[in-house]
């Protein structure tokens, strides 16, 4: 079988450098953390920055196209025949690499300020750098096993960072939950790998895609579904999304980098990477597109019911990834990937902005206890405002508008009018809950000194306010140096946010111009472009309809939270809303409960039955029974052992006599 390599084979030292530098940083910070102290943060940030520069320098090789081979390929080593490893840098992985290292660099810088004074400062940066390395492994691998290695390692980094404050039981449980659900996803990818190896005897993308047309459709559907199980777990798609809101237990920069900008979009990357497989199977496209749309709207609705600022953002992340998955699912790869690209900026921006607030308010995360922050924190307000504009999709003012329209229009072009409709409705809901977040947080007057019960906060631990171990977390986080309760964000936290404002507002213009946009050119050779019949509704009209939905969302939010009368009665309104919130929304459709009953409890039941009953009673019981029967046999034989010498002699004689009689009479004599 010929070997199909994607990308131009060659030696690309820059590629190796940009891949391995974060690993070096992780090892350095991990091994010499106590010695490096705060220098660890600067070193790790610098290494990611250098990685970013290398990634930019790889632009040329990454986008080159020589006789059908797109990008750069560097062979590494081989486990055994069929399991060959290498790095592949093509436009798709280049895009991800730029985001991972670029946005990653900014978030690293921000973390130097955010994590300042934490006892495990160096350890934090070791994990962050390790995450960058793992994520680069994921997107740079030229084969499924390498991708799975990266896939598992980002899961590990995520586990470490969610459980970073490991003395908090809630953080520990959230970390474990995230890891186990992601392993369930890994298992899906593993099974897809089995099927691919069974058909093409190789794990390389090139081999798998070269024969995509030759698989039978059931087989291909099975491969796609299994791959998508992995994608769904990592990208928090229904029903494997329950870990993402809990993952907000991690420090805010972690939420920004891992649980918003990069790792959770790995599922989008996977589907986009396997575009040659998905394009061959309409059922798989339908399935993925539908789940994406479902997640988009379900996440958006849950976003309306949350009070924890990070949880609101978490559900919005889930919802936005739903958009991306819908885009790449239906075949609008450029659109899905574009939304990943803009989302990385504006969601990082939103998380970092919320981090500024949380940091300033001493780890307060409940928006009901905020309010009126516009005057106190104008910079945070501007940061959040640009983010909200971008995510809501207000035309031309934010990046999200362009990419979201690509996805929504793409769904229609690829023949999915229902998904198109869901996309538009979700855009309206998104605008509503993001503006709600903005208004409740920044408008009106400060409610931090109001008694929580008056705001309807009955169970602080359910509302997401740090409860268990919060005091210890506080002590850890503040360290010994800081005495004051509030401390203004250092410039180091503001600079990355300020830088991010630029792409959050402007980057969407790259996608402007239809087929002639820089975006379309960048991906011209990356994705399959089937011939499509023109959509019944043009791009401009779609934009207008979406804008209409967004305006409705904003208007409702304004009416409910931002009008003068609403602001004057804010405390009562919030209390009323908290109390009247339907249980199905506060419990996130009871998915946690269902998964717990279905899998966790069942497994524990099995374990208990096997361990407490089956092992000691049935199996050991059988062993005991055989021991008893041996004992009974022993008793029987023992009765012959009278101890009387003459009895033994008699037995001997009888035995000899019996033999003699047998041979003489029955056997008819001995014949030597």
């Amino acid at each position, binding site marked *: 079988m010929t070997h199909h390599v994607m990308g131009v084979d060659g030696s690309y030292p820059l590629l190796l450098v940009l891949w391995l530098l974060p690993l070096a940083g992780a090892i350095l910070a991990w091994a010499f953390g106590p010695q490096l102290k705060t220098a660890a943060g600067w070193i790790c940030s610098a290494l990611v920055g250098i990685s970013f520069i290398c990634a930019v320098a790889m632009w040329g090789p990454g986008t080159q196209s020589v006789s059908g081979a797109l990008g750069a390929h560097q062979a590494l*080593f*081989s*486990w*055994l025949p*069929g*399991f060959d490893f290498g790095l592949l840098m093509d436009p798709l992985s280049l895009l991800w690499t730029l985001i991972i290292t670029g946005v990653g660099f900014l978030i690293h810088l921000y973390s130097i300020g955010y994590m300042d004074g934490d006892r495990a400062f160096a350890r934090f940066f070791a994990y962050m750098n390790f995450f960058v390395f793992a994520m680069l492994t994921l997107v740079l691998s030229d084969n499924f*096993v390498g991708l*799975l*290695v*990266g*896939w*598992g*390692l980002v899961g*590990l980094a995520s*586990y470490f960072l969610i*459980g970073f404050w*490991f*003395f*908090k*039981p809630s953080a*520990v449980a959230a*970390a*474990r939950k995230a*890891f*186990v659900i992601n*392993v*369930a996803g*890994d*298992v899906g990818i*593993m*099974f897809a*790998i*089995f*099927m691919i*190896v*069974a058909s093409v005897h190789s794990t390389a993308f090139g081999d798998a895609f070269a024969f995509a047309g030759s698989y039978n459709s059931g087989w291909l559907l099975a491969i796609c579904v299994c791959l998508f199980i992995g994608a769904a777990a990592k990208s928090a798609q229904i029903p494997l999304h329950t870990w993402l809101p809990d993952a907000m237990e991690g420090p805010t920069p972690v939420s920004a980098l891992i649980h918003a900008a990069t790792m959770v979009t790995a599922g989008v990357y996977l589907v986009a990477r396997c575009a040659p497989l998905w394009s061959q199977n309409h059922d798989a496209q339908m399935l993925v597109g539908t789940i994406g749309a479902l997640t988009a709207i379900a996440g958006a609705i849950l976003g309306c019911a949350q009070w924890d600022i990070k949880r609101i953002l978490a559900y919005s992340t889930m919802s936005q990834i739903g958009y991306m998955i819908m885009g790449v699912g239906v075949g609008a790869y450029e659109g899905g990937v574009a939304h990943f690209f803009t989302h990385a900026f504006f969601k990082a921006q939103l998380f970092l902005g919320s981090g500024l607030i949380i940091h300033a308010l001493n780890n307060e995360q409940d928006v009901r206890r905020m309010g009126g922050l516009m005057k106190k924190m104008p910079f945070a307000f501007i940061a959040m405002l640009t983010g909200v504009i971008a995510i809501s999709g207000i035309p031309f003012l934010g990046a999200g508008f362009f990419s979201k329209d690509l996805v929504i229009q793409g769904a229609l072009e690829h023949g999915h009018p229902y998904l198109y409709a869901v996309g538009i409705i979700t855009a309206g809901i998104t605008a509503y809950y993001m503006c709600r977040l903005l208004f409740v947080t920044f408008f009106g007057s400060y409610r931090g000194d109001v008694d929580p019960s008056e705001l309807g906060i009955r169970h602080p631990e359910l509302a997401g306010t740090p409860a268990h*171990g919060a005091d*210890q977390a506080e002590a850890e986080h503040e360290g010994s140096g800081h005495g004051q309760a509030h401390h203004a964000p250092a410039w180091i936290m503001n600079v990355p946010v300020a830088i991010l404002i630029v792409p959050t507002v402007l980057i969407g213009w790259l996608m402007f111009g239809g087929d002639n946009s820089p975006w379309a050119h960048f991906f011209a050779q990356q994705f399959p472009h089937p011939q499509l019949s023109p959509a019944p509704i043009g791009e401009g009209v779609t934009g207008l309809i979406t804008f209409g939905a967004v305006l409705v969302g904003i208007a409702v939010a304004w009416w409910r939270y931002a009008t003068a009368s609403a602001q004057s009665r804010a405390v009562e309104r919030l209390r009323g809303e908290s109390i009247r919130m339907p249980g199905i929304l506060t419990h996130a459709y009871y998915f946690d409960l269902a998964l717990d009953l279905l899998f966790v409890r069942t*497994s*524990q039941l*099995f*374990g*208990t039955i*096997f*361990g*407490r009953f089956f*092992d000691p009673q049935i*199996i*050991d019981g*059988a*062993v005991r029974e055989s021991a008893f029967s041996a004992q009974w046999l022993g008793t029987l034989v023992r009765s012959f052992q009278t101890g009387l010498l003459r009895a033994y002699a008699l037995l001997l004689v009888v035995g000899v006599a019996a033999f003699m009689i047998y041979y003489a009479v029955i056997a008819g004599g001995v014949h030597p």
Partner: protein
Amino acid sequence: MIELLLILVPVVIGAAMQFGRDDENEKWSRWTGALVAAVMFFLALASRGTEWSFRWLSRPFTSAFHFGPTAISYWIVLLLAVCTFSAILAVNQPRRRRFIGQLLMLEGTMMGLFLARDLLAFALFWDAMLLPVFFTLLGWGGHSGTAWRYFLYNFAGGLTLLLATAAFGMLYGSTDVIGRTDVHLVGAWVPWIFIGFSFAFLVKTPVWPLHTWMPITYSDTPSPMVAVVSAVQSKAGLYGFIAIAMATMPDYVKTYAPWLIVLGIVSLLYGAFIALTQNDAKRIVAYSSLSHLGLIVVAIASFNPIALQGAVLYIIAHGLFSAAIFLTLGYVESREETRSLVRLGGLGASNPRLAGALCIAALAALGLPGLAGFVGEIVILTGVFQAGLVWPAILALIPIVLASAYMLRLFQGIMNGPEVPDLPVRADLNWIEGLALAPLVIALVVLGVNPHALTTFNPSAYNATTVSQGASK
């Protein structure tokens, strides 16, 4: 001659260490033991391709003291040397000199087992290697019933192994067959011989439902000893399946393969489910061993060359991570005087190095990509699926998810959470304890990134008849 040294030196030194009065301050014994183990490692490294033979029976069948590593056992012998080295450094039991002597004798007898090229020698060392564990259980374990249970179960296996060996010799005329590719046993008696071998191998591995000696043995045996037992001794049965059963009677193995697959899958699931609910840290690892080794049984029974390569990888990987986990749990137990997850918690804050070691070992055990366990799992299952065993492959994926749950429960239950006030606070790992774990952890990472050295072993060269049939299926 290297083989003779590998077997005799540890046994003789170990036996010599049993004499004399007890003296608690014998630091030299640890360093002597470690030195011997280190020398054994380098000797083992040099033993590749060497053989030594001395015929001692010509009737009723020919048999010889024939020793030399095979393509597979070379790696197991290296694993044994590494694990013994680590275990000896980790010994902190009372009567240290005698304990280390037992470890050395265990090393020597297991060297004999894995180096044996003759079935009779294999069977003799099979029984011999039970004795150091038995005496350790009597001398250092909690309950003498455990020792007897361990011994009776495994000795029963040894008995059927010996009978099967004798029958094999009578039938074939020679027992000097391990590592040969031209032996092909046929005849009406062969199924019985196969069953005799299998019983011994299945008890030793162990495989459900012959496993009930294992959890209590693993939890009662002191950690350094159980590290070696679970890492290497449990591989004797699996090695026997590959090197003896598959190599000399492939047709019969194939006939019984469905049963082996069923037993392997049941072990996989059963062990994983039980591990989820245990509270004794060592029992969790014991049941996880049942689960992991079931996977290797499935791999062997699948008759697929890729799965077999994966089996060898996983044999080594499981040895490394189970030794590392047991040694780390030993450190935890010696510090906190308990290994109950109900009592333990929050150690990570004051023992970051200990937490790091347990973390890496637990991650390798749950099959984290990038560590050795993952390589074995994915290669095995790829092969199993390729062999057409779709359902076993699917069922074998469930324990991977369960493993992540119970291994994290183990790790987090000990290291994470708030600090428990009534637990004694002890110092973190010292450099000797770290040195004990270092070779295991380094090997886990190196093999996890690139296990190429291990996969140069080619199962189809090992027995052409065995595997070509499997691959063409």
